[in-house]
């Protein structure tokens, strides 16, 4: 589906944002792309869809080289940017304008999104609030139903009920042939929705794993002094720790703890995940 080999990208000479980055992804998953601000999440999404051209390395997405921007490739990919810009028309006209570009467009998903998000169909989108515009943009992103869907901070600007609607819509619209990558730092919004995680730090991917695999290899739970852990955090419920799961415990993966553990103890993580 996606294969990046030693991909490097720099906006300014000698200050790479992506540095010999390697990445392999398979279809049928919802990936959460996590990283601190300014670590290159958006840059990576833009490289994947051909908006930015890497200076080095090999980038293949669904068999295409994104920077060639072949029509067949562009029909199969959709990028929902963090800040959406929409034409000054109603959502109905918006659908009429953009649906023809996407051969897999699904009218049923389009209608469900408009209904679930309660988008006013007779109102010009320029008169809408930020949150409503975001919902309109998400509607097209999901209805386009492309094999690869990239979403950059999709829950930013959404109110609390809309975040739940968003999770339901993604869960209902995606199928086994689709890959969804959602970049976020609002991990709690998406914890239950994603099934795989990519953690970016220092211009590379530090972890690319299914949550299933994460829970097999690591435990996340309150710990005592006797537990062998490599990352701990003080919380109101006591000390929470992350350690190697040698006893086959079934503890819930905490994305926040995982993120901290991966970024602070990359060597330990690497050792446990390559065993």
């Amino acid at each position, binding site marked *: 589906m996606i294969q990046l080999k030693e991909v490097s990208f720099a906006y300014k000479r000698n200050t790479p944002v992506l540095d010999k980055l390697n990445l392999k992804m398979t279809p049928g*998953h919802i990936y959460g792309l996590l990283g601190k601000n300014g670590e290159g999440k958006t840059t990576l999404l833009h490289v994947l869809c051909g908006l930015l051209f890497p200076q080095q390395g090999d980038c293949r997405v669904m068999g295409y080289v994104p920077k060639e921007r072949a029509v067949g490739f562009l029909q199969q990919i959709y990028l929902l940017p963090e800040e959406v810009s929409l034409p000054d028309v109603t959502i109905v006209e918006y659908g009429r304008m953009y649906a023809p570009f996407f051969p897999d467009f699904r009218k049923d998903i389009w209608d469900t999104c408009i209904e679930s998000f309660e988008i006013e169909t007779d109102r010009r989108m320029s008169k809408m609030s930020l949150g409503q515009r975001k919902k309109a943009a998400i509607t097209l992103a999901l209805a386009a139903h492309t094999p690869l869907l990239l979403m950059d901070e999709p829950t930013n600007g959404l109110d609390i009920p809309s975040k739940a609607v968003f*999770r339901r819509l993604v*869960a209902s619209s995606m199928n086994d042939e689709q890959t969804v990558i959602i970049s976020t730092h609002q991990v709690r919004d998406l914890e239950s929705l994603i099934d795989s995680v990519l953690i970016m730090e220092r211009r590379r991917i530090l972890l690319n794993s299914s949550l299933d695999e994460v829970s097999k290899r690591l435990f996340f739970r309150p710990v005592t002094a006797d537990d062998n852990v490599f990352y701990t955090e003080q919380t109101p419920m006591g000390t929470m720790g992350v350690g190697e799961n040698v006893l086959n415990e079934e503890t819930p993966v905490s994305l926040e703890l995982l993120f901290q553990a991966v970024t602070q103890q990359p060597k330990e993580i690497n050792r446990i995940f390559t065993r």
Partner: protein
Amino acid sequence: MNYTNNQSIFLQIADRICDRILSGEYKADERIPSVRELAVEMEVNPNTVMRSFERLQANEIIYNKRGLGYFVSPSAGEEIRKMRYTQFVEEILPTVFKEMQLLGVSVEDLSKAYERYINK
């Protein structure tokens, strides 16, 4: 749906399905909602629900009919009670005992409290 912090989401979903079987919402040999339907209802990834189904199937609480979906086993209720009994004895009791020891609660205190509870 809200998820607590001390159990994997897939186990919590499996628990909800078990609750629905015990309450009679899902009946023996009836089809339960599909992976996708439950994923939408619970706002979770379909792959997570699939894991819950696999676990329930391994415990003979549901069974799969190819192409038709998942169905409640006739012995599901019994299997769930067996599973929860084991869970109670192996996981919950030790934490109760630990707390009793810490606070100096005797077995007599416990049995009196239990008497009061069942006679209420």
